[in-house]
């Protein structure tokens, strides 16, 4: 990741090229995994499989699961952002609209 230029908005919108390899397929798969349509998920999984392979599908599912776990812990226990991350993350949080999340109240900014 050092020295690479990425468009962080591509993390949230599959129509924006993030610069990350297979980024569009990954974002589409991730969006579908939390959605209601199994047809959409199946299509996104097949697309990710086609471009990145089965191990990538399993890993993407694992990361989606892991952060589904972490997000719930953080939200429900009121976990504040670590002090060392507050300043370095300021620009990213502003760019991605993260400061508007209800859980932002758990961190003194």
């Amino acid at each position: 990741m050092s020295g690479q230029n990425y468009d962080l908005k591509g993390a949230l919108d599959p129509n924006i090229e993030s610069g990350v390899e297979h980024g569009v397929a990954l974002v589409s798969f991730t969006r579908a995994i939390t959605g209601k349509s199994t047809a959409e998920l199946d299509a996104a999984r097949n697309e990710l499989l086609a471009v990145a392979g089965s191990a990538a599908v399993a890993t993407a599912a694992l990361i989606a699961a892991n952060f589904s776990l972490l997000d719930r812990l953080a939200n429900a226990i009121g976990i504040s952002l670590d002090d060392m991350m507050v300043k370095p993350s300021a620009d990213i949080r502003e760019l991605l609209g993260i400061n508007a999340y209800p859980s932002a109240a758990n961190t003194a900014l």
Partner: protein
Amino acid sequence: MSLYADSAHQPSAAIDALHTDELGSFSRVGTWGSAAQRTAVAATTRKIRVEAGIQESCGDEALADCVVLPDPVQRLVREVALGGIAVDRKFCQQVQAEGVTEGAYVEIVALVSRIVNLDIFARGVGVLPRPLAAPADDKAPSFERPAEAVDEGFFTASVPNAPAGGELAKSLYGAAPAVNVLRAVTLVPEEGHRVVALIRQQYFPAEKLMAFDSDNGHALSRAQIELVATKISEHNKCFY
């Protein structure tokens, strides 16, 4: 036999073993919940998510009725099952005011979060959730609260990093200080150990969390991993 033998997308043997152990944990006695209560919490989580249309049923919803969960527990399970977005300090305090102890609150949050972890993975690799087992025993919970747990500014107490957290902190976090989310559910050390192990194996060990060029043997690069993580956290409106 692999836990995910029916999937075309196999995890590593280590993840398979981890998830097998995780699945069994819901049917065993915890620190604050009996085996039946913990099973009911996990099954209720699934029932809520199936009814919301965000996961498929594997047919174990009847286990949600193996004990009657009180209303404040039901509300907590529902909120966390669907992401915990609306949970704030007032909600946490209200649930406790209605009789859910602080330790039980933490254990319930951990249980719901951990079953969602398994179910999201199963969904991602194209299989149904793995069926829960019936409650395995009728032992009484210990109700033990670690003396090391203190108010660190979260909604509930947690075990601080060493030296304040003592030997318990070292056993939970290892030698290096743990970031806040790793300490989230350590008021219930068993749940804390599980969460640390999950993050270590599913994502990165604590010492590599902030090293963005690090590798943990994943099939995706760090940048790809963080892309997925960011999208999930946007969905759950998680500031952390």
